[in-house]
């Protein structure tokens, strides 16, 4: 038990403002030169997989790292974590606007593994251009049980045990079915640090891209343009700062939010 595949898609460094990025081809931003990092969700997926392997040494972890050259650094980091196997799968930026096309690529990458994993883990979003549809679509294409936002992934009596949090209760899935789960972050799950020696070895190892998929299907969704946003808000809009002592500021703040809440 279990063979685990982890889908990893590096994202543009969250600390980088997209206004710093130039316009790129086909209406997209030019992110190819931007620093890319592992998302906290992909980190949690990797750590959950590695912990499962720690507990059952016969199991294996295969990382499926998607992305163009920007994924190289993240790939080396994943390799240094001593995953059992890895694949670097090239991903065309323009194709990523169609979640169905991306899901087909992801499902194809899983299906091409020699040993089919009993568990596929990934973040809730497939990189920067997805907003949560790729994971359930990939699960459907693979015929797997879908379990979103697991905060814990374990194993009991040969069965997978996955937990997620709702407002007042925990939902737990105990199953022997093949599963694709997305993970949420959790304070008890921190991605381990690789040894310096492993990083150096990973950096020296030759790596090559694989093609994303042998199947060519035209994308059903195409990008018109991308423009920086501030969730609809105007950056630099005047924020009225309250002045005075702490008590005066608190009293003024209380009056304002009471009034807003009552209207």
């Amino acid at each position, binding site marked *: 038990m279990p063979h685990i595949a982890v889908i990893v898609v590096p994202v543009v460094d969250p600390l980088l403002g997209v206004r710093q990025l130039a316009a790129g081809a086909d209406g997209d931003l030019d992110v190819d030169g931007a620093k890319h990092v592992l998302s906290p969700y992909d980190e949690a997926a990797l750590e959950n997989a590695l912990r499962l392997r720690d507990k059952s040494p016969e199991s294996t972890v295969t990382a499926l790292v998607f992305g163009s050259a920007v994924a190289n650094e993240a790939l080396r980091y994943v390799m240094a974590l001593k995953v059992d196997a890895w694949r670097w799968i090239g991903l065309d930026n323009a194709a990523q606007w169609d979640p169905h096309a991306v899901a087909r690529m992801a499902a194809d990458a899983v299906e091409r593994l020699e040993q089919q994993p009993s568990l596929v883990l990934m973040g809730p979003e497939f990189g920067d251009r997805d907003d949560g549809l790729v994971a359930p679509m990939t699960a459907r294409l693979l015929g797997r049980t879908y379990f979103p936002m697991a905060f814990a992934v374990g194993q009991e009596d040969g069965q997978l045990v996955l937990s997620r949090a709702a407002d007042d209760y925990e939902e737990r899935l105990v199953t022997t079915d093949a599963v694709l789960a997305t993970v949420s972050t959790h304070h008890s799950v921190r991605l381990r640090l690789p040894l310096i020696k492993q990083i150096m070895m990973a950096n020296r190892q030759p790596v090559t891209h694989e093609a994303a998929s042998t199947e060519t299907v035209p994308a059903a969704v*195409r990008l018109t343009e991308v423009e920086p946003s501030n969730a609809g808000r105007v950056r630099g809009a005047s924020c009225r700062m309250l002045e005075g002592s702490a008590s005066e500021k608190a009293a003024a703040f209380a009056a304002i939010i009471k009034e807003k809440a009552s209207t």
Partner: protein
Amino acid sequence: MSQAIKAVALIPSVAATNSLQTVRTAASLADAAGGQALAIVAGISSVDGLDQCGPSRIVRMEGLPADADGPVLASGFVEALKASVPELAGCLLLLPYGPVEEEIAGLLAVELGGAALGKCSSINLVADGCQVERPVYGGRATARLHASQGPFVCIARPDLKPGSEPATGSTFEETFTVSPVSTKSDLQKIPFDGPRHPPLEKAKVVVAGGRGMGAAENFAQLEAVAAAIGGVVGCSLPAADAGWYPVSRQIGQSGKFVCPDVYVAVGISGMSQHMAGIAEGSPIFAINNDPDSSIWDVAEIGILDDWRNILPPLIEALNA
């Protein structure tokens, strides 16, 4: 001759916050496209006011188990759609915002070979297909997307730009019984021992804490603020990640979406990934001790100070 169905609102449950908005939007878009809107509602749902939202037909799906999960509901919707709408290619399928709805949207797009357009902040049916806008790059940018071949599967964000008010007339209601389905589920529900939290999604006042709160026990002060003003407490990803507040209370790109009348942000930096979970119309009131924080770019009212100095007198003032 009756007009073609141009938009279908799919309502899986009463849990979503914006079911009525979804039906109204579907009706408005269908009106604009010269067609009709249909609402398909899972039989267990009892959503009042659907007939006032402009659909020409409401189809209630019966035969589903009360605790039907995403795949079962998706199968039911596929059956009902195929029986109710003769031509889906140019049709918009619109779902409310929520985790089950997200799963159903993905499943429908696969099952029907549709164009999956995501959680949209703007939707337009145009002569050559469907145009939408949705946040990308962790909420840092907005993408305008186009699909020419439907069905177009979209999720309505609660801050979806409203269209024109749909025409309301007589609404024909019917029932559709779905085929018997296997309801085997290995899912267990285990109640939490801790305090119960009211839902964030429908809250009119949200008090949220971030990395600046420093420790789990400090959230008690946010709960006191919320209690004083009838609000509920949420948190940012770093606070949930640190274990200071439950993951289920996280607001942001991968967490809950809120649209309150008042959003109090305490010790929150205002990164776009967090802002992506707050409706653009919700006013933000911030307390933060960092003069360079991005939160000042989006807040209406601010206090530049340590929350430790402000929250005790704030709680006192709110309770006075």
